[in-house]
């Protein structure tokens, strides 16, 4: 057992934190959000040469040659700074391409200034493969339009496959959507569009677990940053002539938030560690998702509550964490979905789910 991150891992986290702190401060984010599009190409151009956008890919595939744990630490910082870049989708799409098509093709996809997008959604996904062409509809693809390629699931007969499309291909059309976190999303309509199959349902499940864990690590960053803001606030704010953090009712609510944070972090870290060792780490991933939903909801509610009106003021950074906590909570289906999947997993193989 070793519950500490290595020096290298801490350095990677610190590098990500520094870059995001320097380039994605609250004022910068406000300006970007005022423009209506929460996508920062300049920041993306900083992250790419720093080697932070393809961490878990082999160096021969254009990556950093590290593991999913290291990627998780960068996702955590992404959350902590609510950074407006397509980092998670890009990293996961690159992992899928490398797994399906090998290092060379992945490396060629990672060249240039663009990004890759990724969705693993099956619910509400009507995309079908027919004779090597793609038709149907899939919504809420993050940073899909404008990307270099989109990795997505589609059905053929009763079976799901993982596929890749070029977003500007003939037969594809996009309608812009905006998520609660103000992230650009796209509703994709496909009408007999060219498509390439990357893998079968097992590969889709492989990718979906990693995407879920990535969102959990980002949630760790979101919740941790919100808790930090709340901590600073209750140590400063005075009412009735004393710091409000000295009221036991406030302090205990904060302590419960801290405990939730401890558990969320533990569950999410255990998930990314497991994914580095196992193809299938569903028990760890679904547990982390359940914690991401519960802790995200509870801690942000507490953080906003102790802030009073300030927690709703768009000139104060907390609101961003509030919407992104909900974003990451719901991104993979929320608590009900996590427990449903975890319960199925336990029922399928109870011996593997002993404690």
């Amino acid at each position, binding site marked *: 057992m070793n519950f500490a991150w290595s020096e290298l891992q801490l350095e990677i986290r610190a590098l990500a934190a520094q870059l995001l702190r320097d380039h994605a401060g609250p004022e910068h984010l406000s300006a970007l959000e005022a423009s209506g599009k929460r996508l920062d190409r300049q920041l993306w151009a900083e992250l790419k040469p720093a080697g932070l956008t393809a961490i878990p890919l082999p160096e021969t595939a254009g990556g950093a040659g590290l593991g999913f744990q290291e990627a998780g630490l960068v996702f955590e910082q992404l959350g902590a700074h609510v950074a407006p870049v397509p980092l998670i989708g890009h990293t996961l799409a690159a992992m899928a391409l490398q797994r399906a098509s090998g290092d060379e093709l992945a490396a060629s996809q990672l060249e240039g200034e663009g990004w890759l997008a990724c969705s693993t959604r099956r619910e509400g996904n009507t995309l079908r493969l027919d004779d090597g062409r793609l038709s149907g509809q899939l919504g809420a693809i993050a940073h899909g339009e404008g990307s270099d390629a989109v990795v997505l699931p589609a059905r053929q007969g009763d079976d799901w496959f993982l596929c890749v499309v070029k977003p500007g291909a003939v037969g594809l059309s996009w309608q812009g959507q905006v998520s609660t976190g103000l992230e650009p999303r796209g509703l994709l309509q496909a009408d007999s569009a060219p498509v390439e199959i990357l893998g079968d349902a097992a590969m889709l499940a492989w990718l979906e677990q990693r995407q879920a864990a990535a969102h959990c690590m980002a949630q760790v960053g979101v919740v941790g940053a919100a808790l930090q803001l709340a901590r600073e606030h209750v140590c400063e704010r005075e009412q009735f002539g004393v710091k409000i953090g000295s009221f*036991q009712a406030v302090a205990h609510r904060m302590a419960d938030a801290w405990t939730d944070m401890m558990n969320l972090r*533990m569950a999410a870290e*255990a998930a990314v560690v497991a994914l580095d060792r196992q193809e299938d780490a569903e028990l760890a991933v679904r*547990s982390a998702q359940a*914690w991401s939903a519960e802790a995200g909801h509870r801690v942000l509610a507490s953080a906003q509550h102790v802030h009073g009106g300030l927690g709703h003021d768009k000139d104060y950074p907390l609101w961003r964490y509030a919407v992104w906590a909900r974003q990451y909570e719901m991104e993979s289906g929320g608590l009900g979905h996590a*427990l449903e999947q975890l*319960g199925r997993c336990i029922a399928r193989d109870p011996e593997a789910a*002993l*404690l």
Partner: protein
Amino acid sequence: MDVDFSPEQRALRDEFRAYMRGIMTPDLREELAQPLATEGGGPLWRQAMRQMGSDGWIGLGWPREWGGRGYGPIEQYIFIEEVTRAGLPFPYLTTESIGPAIAEFASPAIRDALLPKILAGELVVAIGYSEPHAGTDMAALRTRAERDGDHYVINGQKVYTSLAHIADYVFLAVRTGDPETLPRHKGLSILLVPTSAEGFSFTPIYTVGDGETNATYYDNVRVPVENLIGEENRGWQVVTGQLNRERLTLMNPGTANLLYQQTVEHARNTRDGSGALLIETPRVQRLLASVYSQLRVLQLACRKQAWAIAQGTLDVADASAIKVYGYEAFLDCYRQMLEVLGPDGVLKRGSPGALLQGQLELIYRSVPVYGFAGGTNEIQRDLIAQFGLGLPRAKR
């Protein structure tokens, strides 16, 4: 990062788990199921304790110079997780907390007399801190000890002195200082009081969880000064050290893990009204998933705590958070496990049709004790706020 035990630690766990299956004979289980024997004290329980002692399992984490096996906190934690999983009521406070306090603070005569007996499974020590007017505010305790030559003379009353009815000694917190010059925690001392001493008596307090605790009375009880643990009026230091050592034993998920396993087994072998196996129903799957996700995180947090103790980096706030969360998780998980069992889950042991030998029926009754045992959770939340978050000290 690596959240798993090493191969050696896993081997130790497997060896000890197999060993405990041998210890937990049907006769011993029957004895432990008798009224008021749930915490041990019966002849077969004493025999099992001596057996574990002679087989070298007690004091696994004690240093070799005390007669232990010299393992670290992680192995010690494995031991506790497996004993609780096996269902043996084990006097952890004696072996994991008071024993080390005696080794560190007691006079050589007491140390040399008692440590071998603790290791042999022959000695139980009860803790006498709480008083009718001093619970969480322990520093308000009133039981007094006056020095009289080579002895202390103790007068007072304690409450919830658990295990006193089967114990050989009480690890007693008393006031030795003048309350004017040495108020509250400054005037406290720890005395080791033999339960055979003249003037010591107890009356039982029967608890909702089929347990027995005690009110203990000290009427001019004389104990030799060598029974002083630590220095006179410096007992607070001994108490806080003891409470810190208690960390590994509090909120151990061993029992909950076993009951979860048995609940899963039940769900695999039982059908609902429509003929479906319980474990195939979304309702039961969701309940089991909720229990798993909570207990798994508790298990990881406890293991991380043992690892942090081994590294010398245990954080006060982390330890308190495990205490707070462990209690909340137990309350919620036992409730959800009972829900899996359905209405028959609340049938008592011995009733025809009782499920899991009535274990969940029993444990949900006793589990609320964890909300305050080992330091009430309100104090733990104060500690998290103060040390984890750096908030100004809360008003009490």
